[in-house]
């Protein structure tokens, strides 16, 4: 058993679930013969055949809609968006068909929609999306965002076994990151949906973040400890819907300061709801303004210097944390 990448962990989860449960199958563009645009599903067609690993035409609404139909039949489809950006082409099928089905008919829709999300790889305006906020605001679908190789596998298994639509957002920047290589347990495991995890303990402030930004924040925390003698607690949300309110509130109750960091744009992002919850529930506990660091309210840019300026940088995170610490 050797260390695997974040990307390999995703492939492992799909393979093991398909081996475990014949109701599980994969469909999407180029997921079979090609093994997926990023090779996430390499080898699956060979192992499971073309009925369970389906190369579809370029038609996101049909991919998602077919997944809904199969899920209603009791299957557990995994619908891949070649890039998560293309989820906008099947938006209605998710919002109105999948999300509202159980609530209005009592019939579960156990399906996963997954695909490469996030920036940092020069993908430009149409291959760098962070679509979580739209679905976070669409009752009926769960949204998970793994930041580690262990979580990538465990959260995907949990998503596949969940009896509801789950949007699984894998971050393409983490796919092959050497520092994320990890030896995974040989035995089957899941990371429960709805549970955040504390990546670093500290008393001076709580940082709420998820996805690739978790690593950015961990680096910042080290600097803050060394240069400012600040102990920053870092909470990796892992699951955005449902949100682990408990862990969030508990942490902020003892740090009394909160910094929210996400890669998605600021206005109306996940950070807005986090801030709103804290401002309402922990009014008496806050010793400083709830601070957010996020991408500016603009589309995602292509040119390297623009992308660098767009994404939340170490500098921005450090500056925000120091300002907050000063309260």
């Amino acid at each position, binding site marked *: 058993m050797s260390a695997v990448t974040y990307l390999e962990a995703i492939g492992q989860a799909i393979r093991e679930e398909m081996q475990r449960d014949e*109701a599980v*199958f994969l469909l999407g563009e180029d997921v079979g013969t090609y093994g997926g645009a990023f090779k996430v599903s390499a080898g699956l067609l060979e192992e499971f055949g073309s*009925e*369970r690993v*389906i190369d*579809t*035409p370029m*038609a996101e*609404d*049909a991919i*998602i*809609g*077919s*997944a*809904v*139909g*199969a*899920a*209603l*039949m*009791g*299957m*557990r*489809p995994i619908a891949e968006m070649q890039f998560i950006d293309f989820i906008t082409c099947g938006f*209605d*099928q998710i919002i*109105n*068909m999948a999300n*509202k*089905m*159980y*609530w*209005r*008919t*009592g*019939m*579960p*829709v*156990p399906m996963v929609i997954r695909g490469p999300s996030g920036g940092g790889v020069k993908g430009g305006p149409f291959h760098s999306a962070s679509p979580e906020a739209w679905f976070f605001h669409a*009752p*009926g679908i*769960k949204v998970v965002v793994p930041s580690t190789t262990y979580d990538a596998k465990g959260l995907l298994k949990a998503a596949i076994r*969940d*009896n*509801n639509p789950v949007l699984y957002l894998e971050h393409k920047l983490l796919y092959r990151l050497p520092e994320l290589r990890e030896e995974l347990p040989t035995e089957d495991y899941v990371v429960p949906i709805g549970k955040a995890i504390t990546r670093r303990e500290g008393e001076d402030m709580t940082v709420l973040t998820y996805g690739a930004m978790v690593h950015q924040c961990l680096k910042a925390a080290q600097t803050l400890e060394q240069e400012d003698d600040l102990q920053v607690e870092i909470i990796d949300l892992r699951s955005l819907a449902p949100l682990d309110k408990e862990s969030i509130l508990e942490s902020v109750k003892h740090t009394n300061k909160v910094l929210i960091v996400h890669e998605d744009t600021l206005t109306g992002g996940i950070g807005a709801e986090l801030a709103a919850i804290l401002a309402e529930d922990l009014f008496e506990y806050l010793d400083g303004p709830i601070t957010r660091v996020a991408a500016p309210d603009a589309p995602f840019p292509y040119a390297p210097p623009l992308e660098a300026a767009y994404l939340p940088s170490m500098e921005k995170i450090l500056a925000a944390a120091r300002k907050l610490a000063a309260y």
Partner: protein
Amino acid sequence: MRLERANLLQIYYLMRLTRAMEDRTRTLFLQGRVAGGVYTAQGHEATTVGAAWTLGDGDFIVPQHRDLGMHLTRGCSPRAVMTQWLARGNSPALGRDGQIHIGDMHHGIVPMISMLGESLPVACGVALTMKMRKRSTVVMASMGDGATSTGPFHEALNFASVQKLPIVFVIENNGYAYSTPTYQEFAIADLSDRAVAYGILGESVDGNDVLKVVETFGRAVEYVRGDKGPALIECKTFRVRGHSEADKADYVPPELREEWLAKDPIPRFEEYLTREQILTSALKAEIAEQVKAVVEDAVNFAEQSPAPDPATVANYVFAPEGPIAIIGETGAEDQRYINALDHRTGKPFNTMTDTGKPEFVVTEEVGRR
């Protein structure tokens, strides 16, 4: 497909029942007892009943808003329909959704949503499952002429054709999409020509002639069941009333409506049955009685049913954990499997049960095929 005397009478009964249920729904609406919009399908009965009639056990329908006839033909309970129209707490959607947005996967009915066209990809998923599970069952997915203009229509038909899915696509071309006449919807004469774009079987049929409809779909269903890939059948019919009860439909030329009223599928079929001495005036009266009784029973049942509990409005957004059996396979009817009962009510799904006695006598003889 061969039709016994009993079958013919059953079909006639179902057409009458469909018409009567909708007439009654309209009355309830006019009495202010149905909230929101009411969509009926007078003139579609030959198409909806005739097409659905050709299906067998394990087959699925993916009906749309004019397809009460399909629901009833596939055994959906008039009581369920009326509880839904009256938004009762025991309706298939518990009052959360209305109209005939009714479905029950355990009985082969996929619930629709208002976004027309979107059910067609879902039909592909149902058929894909049948294929994966090596079944010889088929899916009948219907749509209006308007729905053929949507992106999902194209994505679904194309995907179905590539995967050779066992789906009979039914176009109920009733001349209008709301107020929009077909010539403002598409530039071809027969929508079945769209089959050419997918290399699948395409045919158009007089949708007001129930015998032709049964014959055509009988063949289409057989073809599709034979793994030959999907079929696209256009039924030419007409929406003789407004899009909804709020629509006076004064955009429809009176002579055009007259022309189609004259082609009303029920009298047409009645004529045939009488000519063939299958329908005697006594039997006709008896059927009328039966229909009346079933509709009354459904309305009474619905009116005596409880209103939904406001306290539950935000509940059941997510399905609970637990095993799910594949529909139609071992365990699926087992209540331990969460898709075998409605966890919101703790009761099994009931769109097909409580069919509201007295049932039409002839059905006893032959059952639903």
